[in-house]
């Protein structure tokens, strides 16, 4: 049934218009908020709740109950816990600082000696934009023991050819090398952009005062780009915790647990072994680790500035 047209249609729409005018910013912002509540806040709340249950994917809704702090007690006893946490710290530190230092070096070289910076920059953007799963599978082929290009190159040079993907001590370095292929260019490009903002007069003045290149870099350039360095380090931190397919499709977290960091462990626990409650407890550990690393960054920043 159609409602009769309002007699005073103009007034009605004018009041809606006035409301829209008054609350325009809320109306613009709230759809985003509603979606975020639906896809992040609610799941996050559920994760917190699940961490205190024995919820299991196979049993489903039947037979789950609150188990208090049992999951956390198990975490403390679990022999995998220290391995996974050490792996995570290793991975986060290595994939943050190695690419930052190498990237800084490349950026300095690009800034001072190359005319074709534009071409190099375009070339460096490509690995950053390439789907991580493609990167992981390609490096898996490159690292293949017999048919891979890396061992072929090493054997041509007469060097030893390690079993890259089967050796527990090499699994993590393999992940770090494949990661560096995208994260070194990432750091280099952003640091180069910062280097290009260092005022030329500042460096010239230092040179006039008799400072050498190294000294100018240490006392003028580095302090100038310090805020950007902090930003790119935080970005790497955040990415390191996200890194999933780069490990799952490259080493599968193995051999054994040799290259399993916390996010892969959460996935394995929850969706492979179906122990959702225990996986949620791992999830809270991960959030604590992220919070701790951000706190450290914050403290460093306060000391530096």
């Amino acid at each position, binding site marked *: 049934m159609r409602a009769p047209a309002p007699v005073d249609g103009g007034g009605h729409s004018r009041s809606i218009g006035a409301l*829209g005018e008054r609350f325009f910013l809320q109306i*613009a912002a709230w759809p985003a908020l509603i979606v975020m509540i639906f*896809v992040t806040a609610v799941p996050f709340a*559920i994760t917190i709740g699940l961490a205190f249950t024995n919820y299991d994917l196979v049993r489903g809704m039947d037979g789950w109950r609150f188990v208090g702090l049992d999951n956390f007690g198990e975490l403390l006893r679990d022999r995998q816990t220290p391995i996974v946490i050490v792996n995570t710290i290793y991975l986060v530190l290595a994939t943050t600082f190695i690419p930052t230092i190498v990237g800084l070096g490349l950026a300095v070289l690009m800034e001072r000696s190359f005319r074709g910076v534009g071409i190099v920059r375009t070339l460096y953007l490509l690995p*950053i934009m390439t789907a991580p799963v493609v990167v992981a599978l*390609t490096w898996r082929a490159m690292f293949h023991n017999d048919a891979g290009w890396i061992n072929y190159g090493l054997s041509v040079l007469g060097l030893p050819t390690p079993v890259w993907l089967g050796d527990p001590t090499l699994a993590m370095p393999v992940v770090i090398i494949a990661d560096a292929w995208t994260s070194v260019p990432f750091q280099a490009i952003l640091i180069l952009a910062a280097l290009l903002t260092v005022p030329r007069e500042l460096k010239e003045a230092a040179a006039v005062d008799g400072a050498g290149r190294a000294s100018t870099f240490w006392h003028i350039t580095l302090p100038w780009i310090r805020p950007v360095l902090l930003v790119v380090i935080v970005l790497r931190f955040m990415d390191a915790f996200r890194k999933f397919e780069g490990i799952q499709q490259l080493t599968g977290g193995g051999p054994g647990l040799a290259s399993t960091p916390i996010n892969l462990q959460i996935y394995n626990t929850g969706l492979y072994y179906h122990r*959702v409650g225990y996986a949620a407890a791992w999830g809270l550990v991960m959030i604590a680790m992220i919070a701790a690393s951000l706190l450290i960054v914050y403290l460093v920043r306060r000391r530096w500035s």
Partner: protein
Amino acid sequence: MHRHARRISFISITILLVGMVVAVVPYLWIILTSVKRQVDATAIPPKIISPLSFKSWEQLLDGPFLGSLGNSVIITVATTVATLAIGVPAGYAFARGRFPGRRFLGGWLLFSRMVPPVIFIIPLFLFFNQLRLTNSYLGLVLAYMSGLLPFTVWMCASYFEDVPQEIEEAARVDGASRARAFLTVVLPLAIPGVLTVGVLIAIAAWSEYFIPFILGGFNTTPATVGLVNFVGSAVIDWGQMAAASLTLVVPVAVLTLFAQRGMLRGLSAGAVKG
């Protein structure tokens, strides 16, 4: 002294060239492997060059991968349009002034950017199952937004902040409503930035693996997840894997060439502001 400086620049150019080679070699592997005869693709020791063969491409185009490539296109377009439609106005609201919930929304967006999807994915899987949103495009687009929406809101806010408020006020003095001033004055000025954000969303959605790996299903598998089937535990088909990878890489390479200027700003989004 002069000779010394020259030697340094020789060394640094060498290092940069080595860096470029390292950047290119994996692409070279992909391109060459996709057009090798299949016996040569897995030869021991590897054959870098082999007779040209398009067998891998033929098989790829006959197989189910083409369907997952189509899924990728659908998911990418839908995610880009939906995220921009919701995120751009929110970015504007953030750039301009105060409204209730702004602090909360800002804090929550920052938090969601910091927390990896693995934290959200299992509960999302559970209640998407209840709502029959797993194996649906809508479910995937919503899940993709968990990471992309915060990014979009920040980036757009920073572009809108660059638009001088006076221009907008002038339009409103002339009688335009806020919505009208936004659509006809502010948005056109910020459109290059918004388009760059759109390109970055599209690339991120196109490359996403983790979310569809868990929430996708038979009918909605995108190419990133389909790709993995070529290197399963039973069969390894590097030829098709390489060809499939190339279909994922080429569109992104083209977009990167066109949008690289704005990308620099996008790379550091979320850490500079927020």
